[in-house]
């Protein structure tokens, strides 16, 4: 539900989890190959690969998606395709036959010279014809039947719901839940995570449903399921509804109405405000930042039942983080945005783009300092987080001054590890229970 170009960041975040799982799973695979595990392995293989930071540095987001599409497990040829190939080879013969008026027996050496020339001319035209036919058959082989195979469905739905971005969103919600004061309630935590995950899947699916022709025209997004026709729009919307309804119901009834309301609001904000706004005004970036900020707030309200200052602080940190992350990413996509009609700061107002990124890097330092003031963390937190906050601010400053692709990439890749690390530090420096200042409600 955060601004769309979070794909790589979500992979990195879940990469270390995926890495452990991949290792265990690889051992299991050697013992018992199972159909499901095979699919799981492919997914995890990607997660593990992305763990390597140098590998990440070489892979920019657009290249990453290209690699992914090349790593897709080769599917068994659909039943129709041998039929198609047979047809096309029949066609080859048919066309060649059409172009050769002379009977086959005429290819003996005891030919008269003019007939020989004729044969040569014909063989040239046959070759040309067969190249044409070859190109045609190559083109035809790329046509796929729009038939949904049940064993492809999990993979398709995972890509439709941007499962890795969803995983990132759920992890920020979990961080919000864990940072909230009060005893850690496991059932509530699980319900919140599942509910938020479902809501995020729904929002992402609806976003993809709206953006099919635009996604087709951008390198980063051209392999999405709706673009490739792997699933129909009707099915995509049905899936979105089947995720949204239980997800919101789970949050409202299983957790509390406030969290449910925030979930619905976030789905609405992402699908009906952010998505269309992307093509209307640069304000979409700010709206998208709010979308990214709400999940940790939801985690907090799930734990405490109220919107405390701590919730706003966490939301503020996520909100500020979105700007260096997204603005740096969008710097390298200006051509695609311009051609596709997307209104982004990097295209319309490059100076503003860099200023805002730097501004929010500095804001992160301020927000980290406010954390102990609001009793969310101890005073150790601003101290230990200062190095990474200063580093990202430095890169933000470099981006502001240099305004080139190199500095934008460095800032983007820094933001990928900066957020998980910052959240981790917050968790380790969480204010222990019972230590409160005069202000602030007692934990519920």
């Amino acid at each position: 539900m955060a601004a769309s170009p979070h794909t790589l960041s979500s992979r990195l975040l879940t990469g270390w989890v995926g890495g452990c799982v991949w290792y265990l799973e690889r051992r299991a695979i050697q013992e018992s190959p199972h159909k499901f595990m095979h699919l799981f392995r492919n997914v995890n293989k990607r997660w593990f690969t992305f763990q390597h930071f140098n590998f990440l540095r070489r892979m920019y987001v657009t290249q990453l998606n290209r690699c992914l599409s090349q790593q897709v497990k080769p599917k068994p040829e659909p039943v129709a395709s041998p039929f198609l190939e047979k047809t096309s080879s029949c066609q080859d013969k048919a066309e060649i036959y059409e172009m050769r008026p002379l009977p086959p027996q005429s290819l003996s050496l005891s030919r008269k010279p003019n007939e020989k020339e004729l044969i040569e001319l014909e063989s040239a035209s046959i070759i040309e014809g067969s190249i044409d036919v070859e190109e045609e058959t190559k083109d035809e082989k790329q046509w796929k039947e729009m038939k949904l195979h049940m064993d492809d469905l999990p993979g398709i739905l995972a890509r439709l719901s941007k499962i890795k971005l969803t995983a990132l969103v759920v992890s920020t919600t979990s961080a919000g839940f864990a940072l909230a004061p009060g005893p850690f309630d496991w059932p509530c935590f699980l319900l919140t995570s599942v509910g938020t995950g479902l809501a995020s899947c729904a929002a992402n699916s609806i976003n993809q449903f709206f953006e099919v022709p635009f996604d087709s025209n951008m390198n980063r997004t051209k392999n999405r399921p709706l673009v490739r026709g792997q699933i129909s729009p009707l099915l995509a919307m049905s899936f979105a509804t089947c995720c949204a309804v239980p997800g919101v119901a789970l949050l409202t009834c299983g957790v509390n109405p406030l969290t449910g309301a925030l979930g619905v609001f976030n789905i609405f904000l992402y699908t009906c405000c952010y998505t269309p706004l992307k093509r209307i005004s640069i304000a979409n970036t700010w709206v998208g930042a709010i979308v990214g900020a709400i999940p940790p707030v939801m985690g907090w309200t799930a734990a405490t039942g109220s919107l405390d200052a701590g919730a706003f602080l966490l939301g503020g940190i996520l909100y500020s983080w979105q700007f260096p992350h997204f603005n740096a990413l969008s710097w390298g996509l200006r051509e695609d945005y311009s051609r596709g009609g997307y209104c982004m700061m990097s295209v319309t107002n490059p100076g503003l783009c860099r200023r805002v990124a730097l501004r929010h890097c500095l804001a992160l330092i301020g927000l980290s300092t406010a954390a102990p003031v609001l009793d969310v963390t101890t005073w150790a937190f601003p101290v230990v987080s200062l190095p990474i906050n200063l580093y990202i601010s430095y890169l933000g400053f470099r981006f502001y001054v240099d305004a080139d692709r190199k500095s934008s990439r460095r800032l983007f890749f820094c933001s990928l590890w900066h957020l998980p690390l910052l959240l981790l530090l917050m968790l380790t420096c969480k204010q222990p229970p019972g230590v409160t200042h005069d202000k602030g409600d007692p934990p519920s």
Partner: protein
Amino acid sequence: MAALRPGRRALSPPLCRALAGRGRRLAPERGAERRDAAPNRVSRFCPPRKSCHDWIGPPDKYSNLRPVHFYIPENESPLEQKLRELRQETQEWNQQFWANQNLTFRKEKEEFIHSRLKAKGLALRAESGQKATLNAEEMADFYKEFLSKNFQKHMYYNRDWYKRNFAITFFMGKVALERIWNKLRRKQKKISN
């Protein structure tokens, strides 16, 4: 959308290809008709006879959109026909818009590069024979200008696209319900027989 009933293709593949072959010759004339529009390439693809689903092709060279070959079942209901025609029309409209958009972008980008290089006094090709290009910062002016120039066009397109997308999905839902209803009715008839 895939049809659930088995059906036969109206034309056998060899005949279809022969017609398409003629279609290939027709294409340049068609293209000439719409010279300001992007060249409209006739799809020469014919799905196999036994298939009763739609087929989707590789991305178009100009519009980057994947063309869909719609399956026409034998006993197509009026609703299904309406849906298919809507999808066909939307596909053509989309292909037209994006092919135009991409070609215009490419053309204007070339012109911009030429004019800038000329202003700088540089040749269009370096001594090594490689095409001279501008760096990203110089291109930024072009991107900004192109985006603002096409803003209104995109507004109209967005509005129309959203309308069509919703209409298609709505009709898909109606067709799906119709098919379920027909299936249930047939089952009931079988049971009563």
